[in-house]
């Protein structure tokens, strides 16, 4: 017989799943539009608001479950980490919105060299999808891999900063700014993926994985 608490926990899981799907969509939508020079700010904004709503829903349900059932041990840790994760998902869309904003503010950037961004993007998208997978399957090993990947994206960001500083002659300042900013946003998304991965450790072993 399922415990009453389990019914609530399952509901929590299904909201979280909707959040992770929406967050992934927001990121790919924003980045693809950036490459293609399309303005999708409003669409991304809509997804971001949707995520904010779901985040509040998670919070309400989490506190309701804590109040009603006073969960302990893995039940409590699951709820705590779901709160962490839902915050992470909402941040994903927040940075996706920032990326979408760039086209909006700086104009069409399709002419710029996107090599670095694409490289960073591939890493971050992997991190996002794997952190979500690790969270849903409570896979600590996978979570650790996600956290390891964070160093790579940090490096790319630092590199792009140093490169920009050392650049003597600039052909298009807009490309440099956009480059740095997009990588910066991706790096932040990576950080939040790491936080989610770290929370997987908390659920399973009671200790956050070191990031």
């Amino acid at each position, binding site marked *: 017989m399922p*415990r009453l*608490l389990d019914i609530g926990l399952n509901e929590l899981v299904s909201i979280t799943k909707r959040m992770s799907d929406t967050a992934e969509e927001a990121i790919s939508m924003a980045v693809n539009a950036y490459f293609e020079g399309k303005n999708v700010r409003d669409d991304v904004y809509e997804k971001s608001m949707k995520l904010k709503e779901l985040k509040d829903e998670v919070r309400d349900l989490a506190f309701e479950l804590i109040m009603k059932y*006073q*969960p*302990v*041990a*893995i*039940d*409590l*840790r699951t709820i705590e980490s779901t709160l962490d994760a839902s915050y992470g998902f909402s941040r994903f869309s927040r940075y996706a919105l920032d990326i979408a904003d760039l086209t909006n503010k700086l104009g069409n950037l399709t002419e710029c060299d996107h090599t670095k961004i694409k490289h960073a993007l591939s890493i971050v998208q992997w991190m996002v999808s794997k952190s979500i997978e690790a969270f849903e399957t409570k896979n600590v090993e996978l979570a650790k891999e996600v956290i390891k990947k964070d160093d790579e994206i940090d490096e790319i960001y630092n590199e792009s900063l140093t490169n920009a500083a050392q650049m003597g002659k600039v052909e298009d300042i807009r490309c440099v700014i956009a480059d740095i900013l997009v990588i910066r946003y991706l790096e932040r998304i990576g950080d939040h993926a790491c936080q989610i991965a770290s929370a997987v450790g908390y659920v399973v*072993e*009671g*200790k956050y994985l070191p990031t």
Partner: protein
Amino acid sequence: MKTKIEIRNLNVWFNKRQVIYDVNLKVPEQAITAVIGPSGCGKSTLLRAINRLHDLIPEAKVKGEVLLDGKDIYKEDPLVVRRKIGMVFQKPVPFPSMSIFENVAIGVKLNDLAKKERLEKIVERSLRMAALWEEVKDILESPATSLSVGQQQRLTIARTLALEPEVLLMDEPTSALDPVSMKKIEELIVNLKNDYTIVVVTHDMRQAARISDFTAFMYEGKIIEFNETSELFRNPKEEITEKYITGRIS
């Protein structure tokens, strides 16, 4: 934190049936230690071994050591031990045909610990500590049975405190009480921890979580896990603890 009571390799049998297996436990001083576990896991039996109540049951056999400040209580006079280690029971039963005053004073009288004048002070002090003084100060001569059950439980706590024990053992002290009385007793227990080392046996995990600093989980006569309460409830190390506290064992 200093250890007040140390239990070493404690085993208890009733007739041939063993109910406590090799229990080792260090109870920290001036803290509340809760013992939780399913019915019949031996938690009450363990508690009773700490003030030698099993001596009174011919069928019970106790092996092992219980050290109070490093001295084995099983090598001392049980009457002295029980004075130092007070016990509060599940069902508050005042002593028959005694007033409220006498119920608190009786322990001191039995042990010839005080003259009459001091007795009044001891009774008042004990009732104050048990948060009952204000409610009974004008009816000290009334029969103790006229009090409500919640008040009676505080009275039994007061009568235990009157002996100025060092340790308070409580065997499910609130399980016979309504929620309001339960809350009062819980607050009382937490307030008492500044002066006493307290061990509470409870089947109410939430209560253990609310009031205790340390929690021991017992299962089938063994201590499975002992840790700081917040840690044990958030992040139990043993699977069986996890199953019990999350309600997955019946």
